[in-house]
C-alpha cells in the first residue's frame, strides 16, 4: 500500500518535472518552431506549388517546379557558380587561417596587434566590406586598376568580366573569412601539448616535418569542424552580390541564395523560389551531415 503510493508519488513528481521543464523551454521553442521548423515544412509544400505575382492562392503542381528547374540552363549555371565560389573560398581561407593561426600562436612582440589586424574584417558587416571593395575593383579609377596602370599593365575591370568576377569576389571573401577561421585553428593549436613539439625538436625534426607530421594530423578534428562552418558561410553569402554585381555580367556571379532572393522578391515567383529553397536546404543538411559521418571514422585525439 505504502509502496504503490510511493510509486504514484514518484510518477506525479516526474510529471511535475516534465511539465516544468517544458514550460521553461516553451518560449524559446515556440520561436524556433515558428521560424525554423515550420518554414522548412512550408518550403516543401510551396515548392510543389505554382505561386507567381497576382495569384491569390498557390496552385498545386507536384514536382513540376523541379522538373522545370532541371531543364533551365540558368539553374545549372547558378549551381556551378555556387560550387565554384565555395571551392575558391573554402580551401584557401582555411589554409590561410591555419597559417595565420600558426603565426599568432608564436611568442612574437605585438601579437595582439596581429590578431586584431587579421580578425577585424569578421566584425565588419559584409555590406560595408563590399562597399569598400567595390572601389578597389572599380573599372579604371579603382585601386586595382590604378595599381595595374602604374605598373604599365592594362586595366582589368574585374567585376565586369565573366572570367574574373567570381575570383575577384572570392579574394575579397577570403580576406574577410581567413581571420575568422584563424581563431578556431588557434584554439585547436593551443590544445596541442607543447611536449610533443619538444620531443620532435629533440629528435631533430625540421619545422616542415613537424608541421606535416604533428600539427596537421592533430588539427584534423578542428579542420573538419571548420570546413563545415566555412562551407555553410560561403553558401549563405549574398550581401556582396546585392551591392557589387547583382549577378552581372550575364549571371556569372549569381549564387544560389541570391537567385532565391531574386526569384522571390524581385520577380515574385515564390513557387520557384521555394523549390530553390528546398534544394538549398538539402545542400545545407548534407554539408552538416558530412561532419558527423566523418568524425566517427577519422579523428586524432590528444
Amino acid at each position, binding site marked *: 500500500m505504502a509502496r504503490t503510493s510511493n510509486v504514484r508519488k514518484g510518477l506525479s513528481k516526474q510529471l511535475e518535472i516534465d511539465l516544468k521543464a517544458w514550460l521553461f523551454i516553451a518560449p524559446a521553442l515556440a520561436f524556433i518552431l*515558428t521560424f525554423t521548423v515550420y518554414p522548412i515544412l512550408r518550403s516543401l509544400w510551396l515548392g510543389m506549388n505554382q505561386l507567381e505575382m497576382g495569384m491569390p492562392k498557390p496552385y498545386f503542381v507536384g514536382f513540376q517546379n523541379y522538373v522545370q528547374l532541371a531543364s533551365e540552363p540558368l539553374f545549372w549555371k547558378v549551381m556551378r557558380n555556387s560550387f565554384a565560389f565555395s571551392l575558391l573560398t573554402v580551401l584557401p581561407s582555411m589554409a590561410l587561417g591555419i597559417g595565420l593561426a600558426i603565426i599568432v600562436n608564436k611568442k612574437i612582440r605585438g601579437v595582439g596587434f596581429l590578431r586584431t589586424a587579421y580578425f577585424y574584417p569578421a566584425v565588419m558587416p559584409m555590406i560595408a566590406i563590399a562597399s569598400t571593395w567595390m572601389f578597389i575593383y572599380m573599372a579604371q579609377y579603382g585601386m586595382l586598376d590604378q595599381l595595374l596602370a602604374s605598373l604599365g599593365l592594362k586595366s582589368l575591370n574585374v567585376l565586369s568580366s565573366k572570367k574574373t568576377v567570381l575570383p575577384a569576389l572570392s579574394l575579397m571573401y577570403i580576406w574577410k573569412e581567413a581571420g575568422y577561421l584563424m581563431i*578556431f585553428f588557434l584554439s585547436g593549436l593551443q590544445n596541442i601539448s607543447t611536449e610533443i613539439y619538444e620531443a620532435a625538436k629533440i629528435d631533430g625534426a625540421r619545422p616542415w616535418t613537424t608541421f606535416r607530421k604533428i600539427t596537421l594530423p592533430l588539427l584534423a578534428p578542428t579542420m573538419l569542424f571548420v570546413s563545415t562552418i566555412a562551407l555553410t558561410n560561403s553558401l549563405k553569402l549574398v550581401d556582396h552580390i546585392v551591392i557589387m554585381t547583382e549577378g552581372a555580367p550575364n549571371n556569372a556571379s549569381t549564387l544560389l541564395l541570391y537567385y532565391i532572393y531574386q526569384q522571390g522578391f524581385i520577380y515574385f515567383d515564390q513557387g520557384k523560389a521555394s523549390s530553390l529553397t528546398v534544394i538549398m536546404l538539402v545542400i545545407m543538411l548534407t554539408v552538416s551531415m558530412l561532419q558527423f559521418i566523418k568524425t566517427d571514422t577519422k579523428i586524432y585525439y590528444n
Partner: protein
Amino acid sequence: MKKNENIIPAILGFILAFVWLVPLVWLIGTAFSKASFAMSLVPNSGFTLDNIIYVWQNVPFGKYYMNTILIVVVTFSVQCVTGTLAAYALATMKFRGEKLVFLIIFIQIIIPNDVLIIPNYRTLSDLKLTDTKLGIMLPFFGSAFGIFLLRQTFKTIPLALSEAAIIDGCSTLQIIRNIYLPSSKAAYISFGLVSVSYHWNNFLWPLIVTNSPENRTLTVGLALFAKSKEAVMQWANVCAATFIIIFPLVLAFFIFQKKFINSFVSSGIK
C-alpha cells in the same frame, strides 16, 4: 635563441597585417579627406569632415542608428530571457522529450535563417508584420546558440547550491537570478557580443522586411545609399557612410579584442 626562431614568422606576420589593414586604412582616410578625382592609398587632399556631414544630412542615418540599436538591444534581451529559461531546464532537469527538444534546437544550428527568407516572409505577412521592426527581430527571439552556450555554463554550477536554496525556500526563478545568472556573466557577455555583432551586421532579412526609412537598419541604409545614383563615383561619400555604420563595432573590437575573439570561438557552434 627563441627570438631568432620567430623572426621569419614575425616579419611575415607584420607584412600580412599591413595587407589586411589596407582596406580599412583607405576607407578611413578617404572618409576624412577632401573628395578628389584620383584614388590613392594614402589620402593627399587634406583633412575634412565634409563627407561625414554631407552623408549625415542627406541620408537619415540618425534614424537608422536608432532603429539598429533598438533591434539589437531588444533582440538580445528577449534571447536572454528565452535562452536562460530553456538552458536552465536542459541543464538541470531530466524530463521526457528531452531528445526531441535537442533535435529541434539543433535544426536551427544547421539551417541558417537566411535560407528561409521566402517562407518566413510569408509568415510575417500572415501576421501583418512586414515593414516593422518587430518583424525584423521576431525570427531571432529563440537562439539555439544562446541556449547551448548557457546550458554548457549552467552545467558547471553544482546542483547542491540550488538544492540548498530550495530548502531555504527559494523559488526556481529566484534560484536562476541569485545563483545561475551571477556565475555565468562571462557566458552572457560572449552571447551578447556574438548576438549584437550578428544583428548589427545582418542585411538580407532587414532588406526584405523593410520598405520604409522608418524601419530601416544601418546596413540597409548603407546599401541603398551605395547603390543610389548620387553615390556613383563619389567614393568619399560612400566611405564616409561606411565609416558611420562600422565604427561603433570596429572600435569596440579594437578595444576588447581578446573578449571578442574568445566569444566568436564559442560561436562556432552557431
